[in-house]
């Protein structure tokens, strides 16, 4: 019987902090097992060995912020059977999408002494705005459990189980008392997608939205509640404008609260 070919896995990075691909190396207990089941064909953070495409599964970290990267992601797509975006940069433009709300020329002049050398786009945009994406893993960073779930699902040819409900569901499951109801602490949990395991409330901190908007988030209602708790409108704008600022629901919510 022929030995089935191991699927080829590739990891590509665009504008990002490297944290989401590090999540793969942080799966210390599973890393060698995963490496046994797939051929790691292109993963520069971990290996010099680079095999040419096509790849069966490509993980893409980071957002598109340069014309060169806008071209490169099209090449990556063309050699990838399944393209999975990992993390807030790839799925929503990341923290660097704050430029989308400002003047990028002025940003460049602030940071760089010789602005004319800087080659950058006006915006930071998610991968799906440039090419077809087969699966998105949210989070800043992604959840290791969701990353392994997605890898396992692809290896076994099944649909991954990635819930789109809010952090509140995970909080209830974890048995954490509601910070907002019990303690009056502003929390983005009701409008944020689950996946982190409701981490912040367990550390007595309001959710700050790493996983981006949940399905059908009622941001207007949450905004009213936050204001009743004494949060100013500028602080509400900042709260919706962090790592998933360019995700449509959070973008609309931040704009709606602008003075």
């Amino acid at each position, binding site marked *: 019987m022929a030995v089935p070919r191991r699927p080829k896995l590739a990891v590509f*990075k665009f504008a990002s902090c490297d944290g989401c691909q*590090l999540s793969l190396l942080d799966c*210390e207990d599973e890393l060698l097992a995963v490496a046994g089941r797939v051929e790691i064909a292109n*993963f520069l*953070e971990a290996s010099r060995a680079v095999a040419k495409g096509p790849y069966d599964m490509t993980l893409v970290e980071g957002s598109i912020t340069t014309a060169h990267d806008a071209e490169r992601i099209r090449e990556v797509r063309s050699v990838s059977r399944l393209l999975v975006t990992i993390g807030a940069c790839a799925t929503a433009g990341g923290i660097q999408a704050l430029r989308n709300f400002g003047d990028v020329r002025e940003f460049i002049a602030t*940071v*760089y002494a010789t602005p004319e050398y800087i080659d950058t786009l006006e915006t930071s945009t998610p991968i799906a705005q440039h090419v077809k994406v087969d699966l998105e893993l949210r989070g800043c*960073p992604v959840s290791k459990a969701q990353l392994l779930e997605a890898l396992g699902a692809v290896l076994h040819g099944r649909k991954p189980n990635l819930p789109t409900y809010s952090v509140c569901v995970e909080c209830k499951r974890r048995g954490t008392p509601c910070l907002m109801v019990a303690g009056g602490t502003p929390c983005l949990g009701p409008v944020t997608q689950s996946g982190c395991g409701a981490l912040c409330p367990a550390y007595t901190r309001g959710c700050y939205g790493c996983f981006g908007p949940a399905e059908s988030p009622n941001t207007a209602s949450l905004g009213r509640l936050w204001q009743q708790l004494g949060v100013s409108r500028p602080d509400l704008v*900042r709260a919706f404008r962090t790592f998933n600022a360019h995700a449509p629901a959070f973008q609309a919510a931040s704009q709606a609260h602008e003075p």
Partner: protein
Amino acid sequence: MSPSGRTKSLSVPALARVEGEGGLYVKLKHGAVSEVRLQIYEPPRFFEAFLRGRRFSEAPDITARICGICPVAYQMSAAHAMEDALGVKVEGPLRELRRLLYCGEWIESHALHVYLLHAPDFLGYESGIHMARDHAELVQRGLRLKKIGNQLMTLVGGREIHPVSVCVGGFYRVPSREELRPLAESLRWARDAALDTVRWTAGFEFPDFESDYEFVALRHEREYPMNEGRLVSNKGLDIAISEYTEHFREEQVPHSNALHSVRKGHGCYLVGPLARYGLNFDRLTPLAQQAAREAGLQPVCRNPFQSIVVRSVEALYACEEALRIVESWDPPARPALELTPREGVGHGCTEAPRGILYHRYRLDSEGLIREATIIPPTSQNQKTIENDLWRFVPGRLELAQPELTLRCEQLVRNYDPCISCATHFLKLTLDSQ
């Protein structure tokens, strides 16, 4: 190779096993090095620009996103800078807890670099994963050590990448004695594993190569430095961190569009494990000192290839230090200090696994950030890396080109460069050709 055969170039378009995206270009003309460029094509993300107008309390979480490999370093430097601006000082158990969190990051980052990124160079593998096929037990030891670092960060900070529990003034939540206690057993194993790591890496073959570096690191009156101390060097520097910008500047060099950090009036310098170790050997624990000596290290090490041994010594120190904190942990009544916004300037400088990370902020009376400056370790080391390449290549021109290219690549990996960090400030880009 040019038709005359006299000019050739070594090029590594994409450096592997470094954090972030960069390349290396060395040009040889008539048997001499004529150009060296550590190229960074990681796109800029403009943190210093969009931090303006954010609340002081947001800086630790936002700047953590500069680097997924050393988020704790960003959180620590940001928190210390803000506390400096607000006129408060975190002491006692909260200070200890920060140190514990930092130990976790050092253990994780050093184990990652030693086992998965750096050791493959010495043993002749493409990656740690390839190495595992022949050395499964070794790689598993490295992964378990790395995991214990991550467990520390997860327990104290909530998660290993971009921890959630750190805030200006302390933590959102502090662990109980019962929560920390089980870590002690893991840390005792980690300490032994780190000691074995020192012995293992000491046996590697190191090229005969040294540089007369100016080492720059923090120095604290009692401890091996992490969060606090004065900035010192082996060539006469001894300043408070608030004096950083008076003594260092970033300068433009003709051969690239990069600005490189230099010490004013002195030139390039080195930060990171070699510098910390060389300036603070006497602050290591007796066991770490003994392990270093047995590994053949002097109290000062100038061979960058031996940084893998020094990193292992530091991992050993971090395991011992973490164990000390876990065993004596006495949680404070409150997880954080009360803070009142005020106008002012604050400086923070802490020892990221790769070296000093400097933050400076100016706040307005409402506590909103008006100016931000962040200088990460890799941008400070960049000029030194290039200098080492200038000196390293000439004596090795007899090597075949692929071999020499690999050696140059290895030289760069000695510094564990974190290009994702560096880019956003390196003020360096390539012309878009």
